[in-house]
């Protein structure tokens, strides 16, 4: 049972990390650098 918890937690962490990537990119898109 605990195996399932830890494996799910690991997968969950990396899903959050991928979402973090896209959040950072979205923030970048919202900011305009000087030309």
């Amino acid at each position, binding site marked *: 049972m*605990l*195996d399932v918890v*830890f*494996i799910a*937690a*690991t*997968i969950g*962490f*990396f899903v959050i*990390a*991928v979402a*973090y*990537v*896209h959040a*950072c*990119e979205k*923030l*970048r898109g919202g*900011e305009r*650098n*000087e030309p």
Partner: protein
Amino acid sequence: MTLNGWLQIFFFLALILLVTKPLGLFMAHVFNGERTFLDRVLRPVERLIYRLTRVDAQHEMRWTEYAVAMLLFSAVSMLLLYVLQRVQGFLPFNPQHLPGVDSAAFTGSSFNNASSFTTNTNWQSYVPEVTMSYLTQMAGLAYHNFVSAATGIALAIAFIRGIARREMQTIGNFWVDVTRATVWVLLPFCLVGSLVLVSQGVIQNLRPYDTAQLVDAPSTQLIAQGPVASQEFIKQWGTNGGGFFNANSAHPFENPTPLTNLIALFSIFAISAGLTYTLGRMTGSQKHGWAVWSAMAVLFLAGVLVTYASEARGNPLLAGTDQTSGNMEGKEVRFGIANSALFATVTTDASCGAVNAMHDSFTPLGGLVPLANIMLSEVVFGGVGAGLYGILIFVVLSVFIAGLMVGRTPEYLGKKIESYDVKMAMLVVLVFPLTILVLTAISSVSPSFGTSQLNNPGPHGLSEMLYAFTSGTGNNGSAFAGISANTLWYNTTIGIAMLVGRFMMIIPMLAIAGNLVGKKIVPSSLGTFPVTTPLFSTLLVSVIVIVGALTFFPVLSLGPIVEELMF
């Protein structure tokens, strides 16, 4: 302190200085796809890997694709290591018939170990020789020693490309960078290095453990064996630090001679020092690479000075006893004070974590330095790749602060540093203390699962707990010891801290690279702060120390500093 001790320290630094250019040049050639002396052998290997894995080596990635590829690679590798540990009892190369990790009592050790080796931390809450089968050591832990190090190098190269390229959108191909880092930078050197270690007495076998009849007792002692040499060199070369044995580099089968001790020290710093030259080469500003190298060297010398002086002074609590050799508790007599202090400084400057002395037995100030080194984000040469991209975050902050001083938009090698870059840099900087301080605070007020695992009360106990979370989050992996961390609480929280400390810092770092790569080069003007001068190195050192000191000074004052004042 002795003249002999200082000569050894400066000899070591001279070796690092000597290797910086050739190794840095070699890595620049490797990652620019230029010719190297190993190409005739390794190019066919590289092509075969791409063919088998269906990698298009010509495909260039934006930072988001690069980051997601790195995350997927790490996630799959981590899950495989988790499963391998759990089922090792059913698999071959297990002459001691060790059961699966966590099978006797589930403490979350398999999760902690999987997180630890995937993140290049190699924190070990378990005793390796009674926990891991040879197959797990070779196919699980040693594999991660290579690929986690290769991932760090790949990320540093991607960041350098972000600085060096102009008005592009891509920072390279993750699969190509990892393959080249493994095949060119890690494997050939480890092959030669492991053989040198074998020549010095480091063991390499697959046989069952030996049983020795003790001379002064009717009992026997089990002497652990195993494929040590093949794991030992990459342990240092890849700044991994996870020992084959519990005693790590204090064990005579891992570190048998003064020469192997020097090789270990040299291996820990070599790639990271070389990468500063690679930075200069790839960005077209060799002086900038040396300015970064100089800042690192200054911080290294300051750390080793304090540690060496503190340990040589001896333990004030033992005043009246013979301490002519200094504070020798927890140290190998064959290494002595100088080499123990040097090793402790080097292993925590880099995110290695191998130890040849027990940091818990250091004097308060001697123990403060390894702790502070990790708290400075291990940017003093640092982990392979991680050290360089870590210090480049501080470079971004330094030029930003310099820009504020003169009231101009800051520039870094011709690229304007703007609000997004600084926001991402602050995310990198803040996630580190946030994780360490929150988890330490929870543990320090929780007697049932936090403080109950400490071997020492008071400020030293706080230092032990603080060190554990700092080492985990900083992906160092060295243990202060004195804390029984193989519990469900510590395995789970330190396991999470290692993941956060690795990946949540990498993502905003890559975001900066992805933002910088699209910018055009602005011609330098009178308002441009030069990043090639001693003034820049001084500012960089100041920013690193001030950010680290401001963030962690309160908790350090409750731990090692108050302990020093109690003497």
